[in-house]
């Protein structure tokens, strides 16, 4: 197994060398940075799904939260906002939200002071309505005032790496909330619920212009390491400056990835990991043995989400622009799933490898199909047919198809992934525990 992993990693770096040779060093440096960030995100999903069997299809939302966290921390302070009555208005809205939350929590406890269940329900619904209306009466004028005067509230002017940490914390906090309410759901319902929640997060980030600047986008997000421009100021050529700067960034990202990988690996090999595997493979038995299954699953969900948030933060600060409309379910949720399925769920090295390999395939399938289409088009022309129109935009779409094909092929032919989990079974290869007849027996 270790030999197999080593060979696969060696093959990957061979592929990177080929890419470097054909596409140039700056492109490759960019690719590697993004690859490492995606590998971290894949590691996060592996903790949730590979360790915990939790079907998180809300990765998109967590990645977006990570990106937002960087802009909130690292963008310069907006003196115009802090000088206006904006903070006061926002403060009032926060107070209204707090009062609303208290109302809702209070209504949920009415049964303790002798109210019947029916009355409790009624008051709970009323509390939600009152809280919502109360919040809207405060937030609507605040939003209007901020968006018409200072546009948005700006950042806190802190270093970029603080944003990374905050990205992890924010994603973990939101994941705690999500997990608290959804982790009791059956696997396929959990998948659909998390997709839904991610869409809600996306809609909020996209439309809360006062907070996130929405589709107006935030840029330039600062780097935690010197930018290419800094190298250029020292008289280094433009191409080299990109390579140097990106290499610096790469070192930082890889350091985070390796640290996370080692920590997670160490924890998983110990008693904690054994307990987690036991819960995943038979949560009923584990629950009967006195393990608090829900609390453990929540732990995994929060931990994995923190890594996903950090990964999202690193991606945003790298591209220097935060554009909520650039986030797509395919690119930020399904892609990660393919990474973990292909790499090998339950195996951290597998997930990281899957993250790197699939990102490479994802990025490279565009130029490769463009090359193929151009050849094909030339051949059509030589046959006297019309050339293929709009090759560039069509080539971009090929990668969606390729990714879909990879999913179904992997599920069918390598359900345990390229670097499978060492012990036990993976989630996708397992027979259902309750015996049900397959609708079409072989």
């Amino acid at each position, binding site marked *: 197994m270790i030999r197999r992993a080593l060979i696969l990693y060696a093959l990957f770096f061979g592929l990177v060398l080929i890419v470097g040779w054909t596409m140039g060093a700056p492109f490759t440096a960019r690719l590697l940075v993004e690859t490492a960030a995606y590998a971290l995100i894949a590691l996060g999903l592996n903790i949730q799904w590979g360790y915990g069997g939790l079907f998180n299809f809300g990765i998109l939302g967590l990645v977006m939260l990570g990106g937002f966290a960087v802009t909130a921390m690292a963008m310069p302070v907006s003196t115009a906002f802090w000088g206006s009555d904006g903070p006061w208005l926002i403060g009032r809205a926060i107070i209204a939200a707090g009062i609303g939350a208290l109302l809702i929590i209070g209504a949920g406890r009415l049964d303790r002071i002798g109210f019947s269940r029916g009355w409790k329900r009624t008051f709970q619904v009323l509390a939600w309505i009152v809280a919502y209306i109360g919040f809207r009466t405060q937030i609507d004028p605040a939003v209007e005032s901020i968006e018409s005067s200072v546009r948005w509230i700006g950042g806190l002017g802190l270093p970029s790496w603080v944003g990374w940490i905050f990205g992890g914390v924010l994603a973990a906090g939101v994941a705690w909330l999500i997990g608290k309410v*959804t982790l009791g759901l059956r696997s396929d*319902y959990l998948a659909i619920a998390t997709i839904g*929640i991610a*869409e809600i997060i996306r809609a909020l980030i996209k439309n809360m212009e006062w907070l996130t600047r929405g589709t107006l986008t935030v840029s330039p997000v600062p780097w935690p390491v010197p930018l290419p421009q800094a190298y250029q100021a020292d008289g280094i050529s433009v191409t080299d400056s990109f390579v140097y700067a990106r290499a610096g960034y790469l070192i930082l990202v890889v350091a985070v990835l390796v640290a996370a990988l080692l920590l997670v690996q160490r924890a998983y090999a110990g008693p904690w990991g054994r307990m987690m595997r036991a819960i995943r493979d038979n949560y009923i038995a584990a629950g009967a043995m006195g393990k608090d299954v829900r609390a453990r699953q929540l732990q995994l969900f929060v931990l994995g989400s923190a890594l996903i948030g950090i990964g999202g933060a690193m991606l945003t600060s790298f591209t220097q622009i935060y554009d909520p409309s650039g986030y797509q379910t395919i690119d930020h949720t399904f892609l990660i799933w393919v990474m973990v*399925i292909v790499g090998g769920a339950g195996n951290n090295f597998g997930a990281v490898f899957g993250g790197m390999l699939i990102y490479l395939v994802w990025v490279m399938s565009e130029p490769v199909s463009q090359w193929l289409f151009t050849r094909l088009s030339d051949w059509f022309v030589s046959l006297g047919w019309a050339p293929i129109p709009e090759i560039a935009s069509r080539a971009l779409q090929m990668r969606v198809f390729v990714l879909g094909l990879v*999913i179904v092929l992997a599920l069918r032919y390598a359900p345990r992934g390229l670097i499978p989990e060492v012990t036990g079974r993976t989630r996708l290869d397992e027979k259902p525990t309750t015996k049900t*007849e397959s609708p079409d027996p072989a």
Partner: protein
Amino acid sequence: MNEAIFFLNNAVVPGLVIGSIYALGAVGITLIYGILRFAHFAHGDLMTMGGFVSYLLAIGLAGIGVSTTFPVAYLILPVAIAITAVAALAIDRMFYAPLRARGVKPVTLLVASIGVTMMIQGLIRLFFGTGTYNFFEATPKVIHQIRLPIEGVTRPISFTQPQVVMVLVTVAVVIALHFFLTRSRFGKAMRAVSDNADLAQVSGINLRMVVRITWIIAGGLACLAGTMLALDVTLKPDLAFNIILPIFAAAIVGGVGQVYGAIAGGYLIGFAESLSVFNWAVLLRPFRDQLPDWLPTNLAIVPTEYKLTVAFVILVITLLVRPTGIFRGASL
């Protein structure tokens, strides 16, 4: 009275129309869940594919010089439905049946259907790009306007011809489906499989046949819904990808596996969306002199830009409060 008509035109009609589309999609999702026990995520793309099949047939027909006074899409719809149903069968044979034969968990099939989603979407975008297409380039969309013969009413009730067709077709489909499931031999067999697949098998019911019928119905309804949606708005490669979650919400709210629940869920989600972004202040306009002036001019329950999230919020609340849906149980 003008305000009531405004409400009708801007809240009731859109709710009815989008509700019909959700209902048709949700019935397919719920049938597949009832028989095959998995959440078919690629259903939205089956709808898009159906829309594009209709579009190709329509321009093909126009190309050979057929011209009609009504949108040619109605004419080719049966053919498009047949093609989409065959495509659904082929997808099942190629991608889902081998996994089922191995006895994988339902959620593995869900993941596989996400793969299928991406393949269909990739192919559609490959051939059609990312632009929008319109059925009404040759013949303009007919808009019906009904003016009420009442004093002081200036605003007509208005809706388009495809909207009328869509609602009527949905009603017809629901009735046909009802009779199929309660009267026909294979319809009852489908309910039997959904109820107890093992027992259906030992009763001599051919499960493969039932699976095939399920895909034919689900694929056909998807094509219908996709074409109708394309006729109502425009045809885009990501047309249905955006409504797959409301459709899931409709199926879950209605109780997964429950056909009538899915229909009710479809309209519920459709109306919830249109009513929650409707500006209720409009209805208060006749009383504006009596109203206090601190009342805001926009009284929509949620801002328009959050329209899509309404379905998700309903979905999440349903999953948390009553995961079995309004119509309890998982059977047809």
